[in-house]
């Protein structure tokens, strides 16, 4: 089992996201996260999918995605030449006197505090998945109690100008 990140450029038609997620469910593929957003050209949407499987499955996923009529391109975003980012919001229960400790910890991870009440903090972190995982891990193992987490799944782009698709 490997995890792989695919980037799709798709026609921005109604139902395109359901066609793509439907493909994963009906063929029994895993989908760890999926994010979608319109590109600079409103006719197209860029989708980043994190999926896992063995080599044969991953090859089939790529081919079956490419076969969908709405899909303009599918490419793998390899970790060594791509930038991945995920946004994660974490609500932590903290006693007032320990707030500073949490804020300091968040600072180490370049996270920001977006909300503060007398007994809770909301931390926002934008990072790659493994850093977010580490941060959550650190929080979980500390004395603070995580109340809620919301993660977006990653968006990614390949570095440099190779492989950029120019719209016609």
């Amino acid at each position, binding site marked *: 089992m490997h995890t792989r990140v695919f980037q799709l450029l*798709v*026609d921005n038609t*109604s*139902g395109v996201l*359901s*066609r793509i997620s*439907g493909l994963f469910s*009906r063929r029994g593929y895993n989908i760890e996260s999926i994010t979608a957003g319109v590109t600079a050209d409103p*006719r197209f949407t860029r989708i980043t999918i994190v999926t896992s499987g063995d080599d*044969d499955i991953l*090859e*089939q996923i790529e*081919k*079956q995605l*490419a*076969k969908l*009529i*709405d*899909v*303009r391109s599918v490419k793998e975003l390899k970790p060594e030449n791509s930038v991945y980012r995920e946004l994660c919001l974490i609500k932590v229960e903290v006693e007032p006197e320990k707030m500073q400790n949490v804020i300091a910890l968040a600072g180490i991870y370049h996270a920001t505090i977006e909300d503060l009440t007398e007994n809770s903090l909301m931390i926002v972190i934008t990072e790659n998945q493994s850093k977010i995982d580490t941060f959550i891990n650190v929080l979980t193992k500390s004395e603070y109690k995580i109340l809620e987490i919301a993660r977006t799944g990653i968006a990614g782009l390949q570095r440099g100008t190779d492989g950029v698709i120019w719209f*016609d």
Partner: protein
Amino acid sequence: MNGAEAIVKCLKSEGVEIVFGYSGVAIDPFWNALKDSGIKGVLVRTEQNAGHAASGYARVSEKVGVCAVTSGPGATNLLTGIATAYADSIPLVCITGQVETSQIGSDVFQEADVIGAAESFVKYSFLVKDVRDLPRVFHEAFYIAGSGRKGPVLIDVPQDVQEASIRDFTYPESDPALRTYKPTVRGHIVQIRKVAKELEKAKRPLVCCGGGIHLSGAGEEFRAFVEKFRLPVVWTMMGLGVLPTEHEMGLGMVGNNGHSNANRAMRECDLLIMMGARVADRAVADPDLTFDGKVLVHIDVDPAEIGKNVGPTIPIVGDVKHILADLLDMDIKCRPHEDWIAALYEYRSERRTLSQAAKGKSGFVDAPKFVALLSSMLKEDAVYVADVGQNQIISCLNCEIRKGRFLTSGGMGTMGYSIPAALGAKKADPERQVVAVCGDGAFQMSMMELALIHQEKLPIKIVVVKNSYLGLVREHQKKTYPGDYTMVALGDEPDLKHIAAAYGIDWFLASEMKGLKERIKKFLDSEDGALLEVRIDPMVDIK
């Protein structure tokens, strides 16, 4: 002009001559507009059969088949027809009426989300919300259905869109320039050259052809190719009839229901060229072992099929018609392999015939012999439509196809396919002899179409191979739950003589081998639609 009239104009522009379907309020504007258009509407007796009839039509006419049904239950009834066409890559455009745009999503009368329901077995689907989109949508739909790996395309048209007025109607002329869909047509020449090289090296070459040869209209090129290089040929169920079954290079059908000698050829060859076949589970029992140490060439128009079930040595993506033309143009010097051909002929002569395996008691007809006899008595270019079950396997293994076609539901295995598909085939080519062969189970799933056969005076010949059991499942239960049959006995069945009479169809009976030929002749020579009841021993297994 309203939307419905625009749809009819779109169909006219696509050269459509016939639409199979069923009426209902949400599709009525369309039928009303079709009435005096010159395009014929054919009223099947249940929506599923509109899909099958359009499929039979598409396969014989080599055009895109069209069907139209109403919203809600009409659309959901059609789903099996769409899924069946999808599994066999048959090009269809399926039009469904939909409730009014403003009511979509509010669970009004006869509303169903057919786009969502059909999502996993359509090539593409459209919900038309603006009447001005109709020309573009239909143009794209026909293009998508009939190009690349063919398949069904669904167009859902709300009633108010059919009734809305459209001012400017222009139908696009050239192929649509779709931003995201560009099917590969030409095979990569470097890959094709590699195949040529392998052909020169191979000691035991073999070609396996699938339904893709029919779909690409490459029958002539295929025959020229295997004759030129004297390549032995096996076929999948969908590839049956690509070569005449008695062709000197033809060995038989592969797969777990296939001919033993054809499977043996697959095991022993050193070069296997798969053309327009997806190496499906029923065709290759154990794909990994089958190709151990062999050179496997896989030619398919759908890149996703290559490597899905087996990893080929040389993959070629493209339309097999073009690839065959390229191969025929090349100067290939095949290594002589007459000893291999001689060995294959020997295997063929030793093949265990079904007649030996399936010999029933006296007082019944021997089904394999019947199929062989029937097919030999058909006209040279007849269309033979087999249903699903024992009759399908007996047909595949024993029927003789010369210049005709063999149609069946291969991928989905949809019972009840044969009669409506035969109906569509007959509509595609009224001069051609069309025979549907089904079991008594499948017959009772589709016998309502006898009404249409009578109404349209279609001289379709229907053979009902009757054993009062769902035979193939009974056979499965015999092995899986020995002696414990359940849900397979059809019991004291309706009298087919009376059924035929009720629908105004001639009935013939064959219940013994004696005089069988004369009975078949009478049945085939009868003027209108006719039904031949063939009684076979219910407890005879075919495997």
